[in-house]
């Protein structure tokens, strides 16, 4: 089941890119969403994410990890584009 879903997601991503159906920014957004769905599949089907003995601290830890990952990636890219253009 997990395998089927993840392969479908992969092929879908490839297809949207090859089909040239969307604008550049939209495409990026779509394939990123598909990638995020893949994470969910992995976590749910294979990594037994919800299992644990005692409180589920690892869920909060990973959630925090995702938040900080987002901050770092988005922040870095925002900073490095220098407001879109160089004055000179």
């Amino acid at each position, binding site marked *: 089941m997990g395998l089927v879903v993840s392969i479908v997601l992969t092929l879908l991503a490839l297809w949207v890119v090859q089909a040239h159906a969307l604008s550049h920014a939209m495409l990026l957004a779509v*394939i990123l969403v598909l990638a995020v769905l893949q994470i969910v599949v*992995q976590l749910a089907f294979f990594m037994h994410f919800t299992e644990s003995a005692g409180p589920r601290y690892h869920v909060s830890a990973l959630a925090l*990890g995702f938040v900080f990952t987002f901050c770092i990636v988005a922040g*870095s890219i925002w900073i490095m584009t220098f407001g879109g253009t160089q004055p000179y």
Partner: protein
Amino acid sequence: MSLAHEEVLSHPDHDIPLEYSTEDGVLKIFGFWIFLATDLILFACLFSMYQILHLNTAGGPTEQDLYNVPEFMAETLILLVSSFTCGLATLEMRKGHRGALMAWLIVTVLLGLSFIFLEVREFVDYVGRGATMQRSAFLSSFFTLVGTHGCHVSLGILWMLSILYQLGRRGIQAITARKVFIVGLYWHFLDVVWVFIFTVVYLQGVMH
């Protein structure tokens, strides 16, 4: 390790999987989740590095010049399947089938090896076409990002081999069960990272 203070030992419960049955197992599995969180940030930094440098080709080969759809699709599918077989291994372990567990692990290792083989071939091919790490910032970050993932996979293969050996000698018991579970987490995590490499590096690269 000190005595358990968590519920695990005080209420022995037959539904608890073997890998969680000792305090040691609980701690190590939790610790490994945290380790994965640090690895996540590590890759996040490499990804932002790549995203910022991927157009800085310094007149050298560009993404479109290099990436080849069948090649990276093959790598992707192999890794996805290996993630699945690794999941099957964990399930067999839960059922206590040592033979099936080892068989699936061996399949996973073989898939991992073929992934590494394809990746090495890809790298060698690029280098042969003058696309070395020294050529441009884009290539430096490409090789570092994809290569770091590749190193992780190679380590995972070695690790699985060591666990296979231990399973052969000691069978399924609390410690080996924990190790199988943890190496499984690691393997699935690498799969997740690859999905992003697939998306951000390869798909984005062939988008135009």
